[in-house]
């Protein structure tokens, strides 16, 4: 019986080959989607950014990095970067602080606390469109209640969305509200992971509630805070819907013209169609987001408590 010694390796090899083709078959659908709608358009975006493009969408001339330089030095791009930065700096800390505050409030053993937890997480069910229209009741022209309350004392009528000094803050407020439910859920889960006996031991040692929060809860919450701040920052950089619904056109004096709105404005809003500049802007946005994600992880990793 010497012949069969070859047979098992043959069978194994055939099985192995079948396994490999199965594996490729399984990853293929995803890879197709990624190739067609993520990688190819990403390359195309950078490529298109090198061309002067006519309003009809035809490439006129290759101008290479000059286009990127033009965009970087343009008033519009600088303004939209500044607006976006302000928007990030308002909505991210604002969302985190309010989210933690709500979570601390709801992290107690009280009868009926489940109802309050549901209420606090309720805005997670609102889309950007729903949240924005709901906020019109507060900041909308003519009928916004905040306008009404703030303007009752003064002589002039207040219109938060029409005033270049306040429009971005008003939009940011509605964004913070929309994010609040999700941040609350994440923070509450983080608080529940802090061991009670640790807090109890600190209390017995005489640590006040602020000291317990500052030296136990907050450090143990740091991975969750990192996670939420990354998500909120990326979200803020990609903000679009609230701008389009609350301040169509990019706001008074372009004061809410965040970067994604600027791309949309240049590529899709009739008249000012400029695909080359829009592509270059999108390419720059990609680089910013990439750098930001990497930087944020690197920077925060060192200061974050991961246990042990």
């Amino acid at each position: 019986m010497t012949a069969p010694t070859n047979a098992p390796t043959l069978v194994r090899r055939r099985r192995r080959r079948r396994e490999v083709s199965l594996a490729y078959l399984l990853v293929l659908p995803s890879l197709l989607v990624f190739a067609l709608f993520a990688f190819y358009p990403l390359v195309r975006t950078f490529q298109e950014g090198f061309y002067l493009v006519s309003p009809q969408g035809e490439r006129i001339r290759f101008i290479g990095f000059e286009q990127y330089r033009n965009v970087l030095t343009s008033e519009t791009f600088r303004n939209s970067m500044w607006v976006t930065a302000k928007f990030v700096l308002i909505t991210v800390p604002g969302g985190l602080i309010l989210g933690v505050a709500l979570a601390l409030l709801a992290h107690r053993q009280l009868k009926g606390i489940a109802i309050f937890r549901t209420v606090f997480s309720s805005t997670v069910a609102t889309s950007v469109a729903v949240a924005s229209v709901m906020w019109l009741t507060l900041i909308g022209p003519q009928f916004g209640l905040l306008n009404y309350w703030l303007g009752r004392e003064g002589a002039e009528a207040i219109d938060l969305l029409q005033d270049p000094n306040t429009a971005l803050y008003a939009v940011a407020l509605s964004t913070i509200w929309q994010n609040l439910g999700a941040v609350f859920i994440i923070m509450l889960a983080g608080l529940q992971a802090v061991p009670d006996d640790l807090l109890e031991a600190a209390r017995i040692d005489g640590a006040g509630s602020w000291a317990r929060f500052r030296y136990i809860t907050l450090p143990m919450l740091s991975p969750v805070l990192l996670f939420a701040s990354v998500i909120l920052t990326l979200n803020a950089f990609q903000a679009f819907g609230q701008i389009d619904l609350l301040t169509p056109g990019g706001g008074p004096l372009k004061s809410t013209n965040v970067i994604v709105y600027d791309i949309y404005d240049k590529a899709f809003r009739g008249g000012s169609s400029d695909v080359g500049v829009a592509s270059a802007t999108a390419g720059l946005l990609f680089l910013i987001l990439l750098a930001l994600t990497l930087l944020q992880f690197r920077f925060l990793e060192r200061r974050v408590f991961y246990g042990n």
Partner: protein
Amino acid sequence: MATERAMSGRPGRGLLIAKRIGSYALLVAVAFVVLFPIYITVVNSLLPTREILARPPTFFPTSPRFSAYTEAFGAGHLGRYLVNSFIVTSLITAGQVGTAILAAYAFAFLDFPLKRTIFFAFLATLMVPFEVTIVSNYDTIVNKLGWGDSYQALVLPFLATGFAAFLLRQTFLGVPRDLRDAAALDGYGHLRFLGRVVVPLARPTIAALSVFSFLLAWNQYLWPLIVTNDEKYRTVQIGLKALRGESLDKLDVVFAGTIIAAIPIFVLLIVFNKQLVRGLTQGAVKG
């Protein structure tokens, strides 16, 4: 000072009750602030526009009317938009979860050349936000393929995500390898093992992922805005924008439309609360 410390060590009954009342008062006040925009939207949807604009504002409608809701469905086409949103969102959710299950199985249980490279490509998609590629994607899908105003334009780009595949791979890696060997002895092929053993074991994660995908797809705004003009294909989010643009003198219809658009997701949140929380906190708490 001394008495205060003594009391905080073992608070008296009266103080305990006072503290508890204070807690509830604070909770109620904060809940009121959080819910206020939703409440006012509901109130405004029940008032004629002239009363929405009236000052001082109405907070408790004495004679509510529901005509704005029927009008939102009738002239506002909200029914059509809701159906579109359901179709598009269901297809995207099924696609994302389906493609992720398949790919995750390959990454967790199979060995193949270029596995690391392909896995890296999956992860790299997390670094390419859709906002960056819309200009080019619009060119491909609308200009080149001529798919403007179609379901495939709304669905196809979102049928797979690196995040979903990554999340499921992590979960599948937790399935004991002995199970695979045992299943192989029973004559299970890979696909049968995936369908009968792995997927049922990973059901909590798959459920969380589905709810999360549904929520994100339902809420999409920018892409549906630029690829649909025809109200036949418009999703409900874009329908809200249209409603707001069309009926400047019909604010009640705009607010009624908003409530209608919000209700499906509120129901989803209540029914699948556990899955949603899992989906949101996955990766956050476990590090």
